[in-house]
């Protein structure tokens, strides 16, 4: 039966489309797909196994039913939101492979295969990916969390574990499926509404924005999943999709723990249980309405996704060449302006324009930058949430962390992408045309980072600072932030001898050891810089910090220019074919 499926046209096409999920731009063409799948799968499972043990360990100690019912709401919210965001992120990263690619259509259409079969196979592959990820993420927690939750209650028989596990598994997988379907619905509806050409232009930006939002949400999740019951159901979080599914969870299985018979409790525990039960009973009234919302939202999203998907899939896409997008024509004016003002040297000009194009138009680089932006936004939101104005209305130092955290995260992402070739097979053009102007080219690349990343981020956060600090101090803060970003960029690219976006990338072996040190240095640097800005804003004398930054910049530039550079750039540096253990020495 299985062999027959594997050999059927449907089975062959489904497996082909499943393989395509592993063969996107973010993965090296030389990577071993089976090994990659095994590593990612085992990582997802071991991570969820570890986290669910760590999170659920607290239930092993003595709990009252009311206390456990209230405390478990936070964990359930976390599991639901985690699964939902992870599957949505998977859908967002697989954005272009979620529907039939024009190249697939061009290859498969001439074959004697029904177009309907191609569409069904793609749909099956998309469903298998979503289902597989949803199950992989929720499988272990579905056993561990209910088991440890009932661990301390002797009045519960093992038979109660079955409904707890079943409900946990069903609701978390449904929530994850909702996240996955929501991305598909968004993509397919946007494609349907905008049409092929407009969607072609909007699609990369939509994907990037989605990854930024989802990545930020994932990083902010632990903070969001705190005190669910205590904070009530009035705030915006209560309207979020994970809360709807929490409503389903509690409607189906909440009573199993909350209504356990109260046996053998000390008077202190009785008091605690009464207080907790009162809080839970208040929440309990909200759960059916939330559950109803989950059912309606799931139904609506599933219908929308299916309708949009099927409407779009009626005709297989064609490989018709696209006409010049309007933004390219507008870009000419901006390019001329940048050439006249910013990059006057030819090699710097080449670096500037190539870096801008590579970082925004190349899928892999755009995704990396979106992840970096997500990290930056999440850290900025955390800093913002803890920023309270002082007694004398002075600016909180934590507020001043926002800008350097965001810029820093983006520039670290940029530092990573310059090492990854934008198109490895095209680097022959660089090899032939490359002269001895590496330093000038790199100057252009750095200018592209400032113009393409720092300035847009500055524009995004500026209104917040104008609102909080007032226009003059916000302008001062922006200037200091920009200067700090330029110096930080100079520091992280210092000593980079290769051609950005072009040479092969060999990961550094000692990165695992150095990454925590870099992270600590980054946080300490941000804190110091925020304090420096606080002092400058408070004092009203920005010249001294600006002067200090200028001195650091000049010193770094002098060292960089005077540093001996390697003669010929090795564009195709290969990894060492074997590692010597030197056991005999």
């Amino acid at each position: 039966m299985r062999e027959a499926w594997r050999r059927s046209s449907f089975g062959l096409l489904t497996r082909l489309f499943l393989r395509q999920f592993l063969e996107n731009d973010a993965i090296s063409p030389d990577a071993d797909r089976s090994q990659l799948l095994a590593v990612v799968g085992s990582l997802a499972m071991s991570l969820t196994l570890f986290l669910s043990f760590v999170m659920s360990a607290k239930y092993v100690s003595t709990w009252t039913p009311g206390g456990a019912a209230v405390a478990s709401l936070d964990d359930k919210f976390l599991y639901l939101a985690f699964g939902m965001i992870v599957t949505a992120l998977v859908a967002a990263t697989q954005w272009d492979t979620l529907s039939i690619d024009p190249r697939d259509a061009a290859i498969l259409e001439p074959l004697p295969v029904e177009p309907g079969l191609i569409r069904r196979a793609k749909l099956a592959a998309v469903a298998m990916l979503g289902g597989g990820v949803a199950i992989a993420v929720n499988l272990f927690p579905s056993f561990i969390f209910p088991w440890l939750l009932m661990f301390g209650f002797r009045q519960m028989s093992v038979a109660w574990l079955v409904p707890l596990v079943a409900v946990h598994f069903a609701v978390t997988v449904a929530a994850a499926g909702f996240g996955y379907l929501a991305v598909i619905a968004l993509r397919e509806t946007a494609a349907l509404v905008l049409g092929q050409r407009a969607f072609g232009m909007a699609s990369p930006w939509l994907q990037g924005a989605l990854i930024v939002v989802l990545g930020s949400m994932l990083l902010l999740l632990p903070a969001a999943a705190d005190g669910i019951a205590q904070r009530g159901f009035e705030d915006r979080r209560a309207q979020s999709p994970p809360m709807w599914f929490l409503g389903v969870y509690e409607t189906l299985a909440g009573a199993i723990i909350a209504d356990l018979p109260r046996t053998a409790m000390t008077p202190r525990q009785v008091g605690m249980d009464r207080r907790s039960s009162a809080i839970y009973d208040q929440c309990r009234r909200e759960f059916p309405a939330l559950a109803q919302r989950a059912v309606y939202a799931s139904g609506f999203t599933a219908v929308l996704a299916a309708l949009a998907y099927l409407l779009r899939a009626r005709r297989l896409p064609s490989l018709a060449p696209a006409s010049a997008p309007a933004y390219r024509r507008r870009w000419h004016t901006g390019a001329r302006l940048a050439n006249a003002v910013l990059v006057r040297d030819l090699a710097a000009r080449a670096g500037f324009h190539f870096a801008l194009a590579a970082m925004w138009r190349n899928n892999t680089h755009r995704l990396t930058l979106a992840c970096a932006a997500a990290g930056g936004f999440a850290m900025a939101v955390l800093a913002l949430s803890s920023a309270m104005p002082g007694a004398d209305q002075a600016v909180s130092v934590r507020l001043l962390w926002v800008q350097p955290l965001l810029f820093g995260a983006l520039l670290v992402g940029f530092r990573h992408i310059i090492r990854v070739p934008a198109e490895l097979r095209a680097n022959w053009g660089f090899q032939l045309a490359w002269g001895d102007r590496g330093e000038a080219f790199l100057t252009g690349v750095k200018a592209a980072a400032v113009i393409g990343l720092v300035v847009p981020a500055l524009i995004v956060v500026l209104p917040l600072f104008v609102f909080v600090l007032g226009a003059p101090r916000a302008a001062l803060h922006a200037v200091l932030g920009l200067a700090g970003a330029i110096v930080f960029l100079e520091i992280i690219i210092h000593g980079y001898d290769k051609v950005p976006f072009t040479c092969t990338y060999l990961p550094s072996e000692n990165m695992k050891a150095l990454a925590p040190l870099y992270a600590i240095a980054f946080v300490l640097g941000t804190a110091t810089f925020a304090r420096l800005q606080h002092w400058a804003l408070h004092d009203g004398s920005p010249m001294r910090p600006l002067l200090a930054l200028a001195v650091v910049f000049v010193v770094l530039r002098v060292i960089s220019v005077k540093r001996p550079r390697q003669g010929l750039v090795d564009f195709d540096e290969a990894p060492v074919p074997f590692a010597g253990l030197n056991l005999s020495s």
Partner: protein
Amino acid sequence: MRDLHAHRLSKHFSGVRVVKDVDFSLRPGEIIGYLGPNGSGKTTTTRMVAGLLEPSSGFVEYGGRKVRDDLVAFRRELGYIPEEPYLYPFLSGTEYLQLVGRLREVPEPLLTKKITGFLELFGLRGAADQSIASYSKGMRQKIVISAALLHDPSIVLFDEPETGLDVATTLMLRHLVRTLAARGKAILYSSHVLEVVERVCDKVIVLHKGEVVADDSIERLRTLMSHSSLEGVFSQLVIREDPEALARELASLSALGA
């Protein structure tokens, strides 16, 4: 204008010999046809001459100096049109040419003029601002040819440049090669289109299984091997099987089970 000499160039990949002891000289104004069947080592040789691949043994000299001693200086004089026109798909044709021109430090006003001219002559004006991802193979090849000629090189290496080009452009390419040679450029023209080589080149080098089996002017080869065409000479030198018999076997294999 200086001479280019390849001295006993050899290349091994994982112990497998791909090119063995290839020797030739290329003078300004000369067009050498580099012929050979698929897998004979033509592309490997041109990549070694361009400095993109390091020879396992042997070396290339330009103007009496080994090119690997100063690759940057050599490449300033070099134009290279590879067999596969791999380009950055996210750039437009204009952007790619600007990138190459700026890296080669062609002054901006001249670069703009040259890019406009190349795109116009190759009929790519309308697609100039489209991303290369939407270009056909022929369009990409035209961009590659433009990029190779932007800086007015002294040596031009063509590696099967007619791949994907339409008839009109192929004809134009032949004239272009002759015109470049007439202006003193040294040209190595690697191809397996015998007709083009016969019409364009002064002399030919025939490669078979990585080794040079003939190196002479087309006229002399015809006389020596008593054939009226280059096709006959080529067949005698490198084709070991009867093409007609081979074609019959292929057709029979296709019809197997029918």
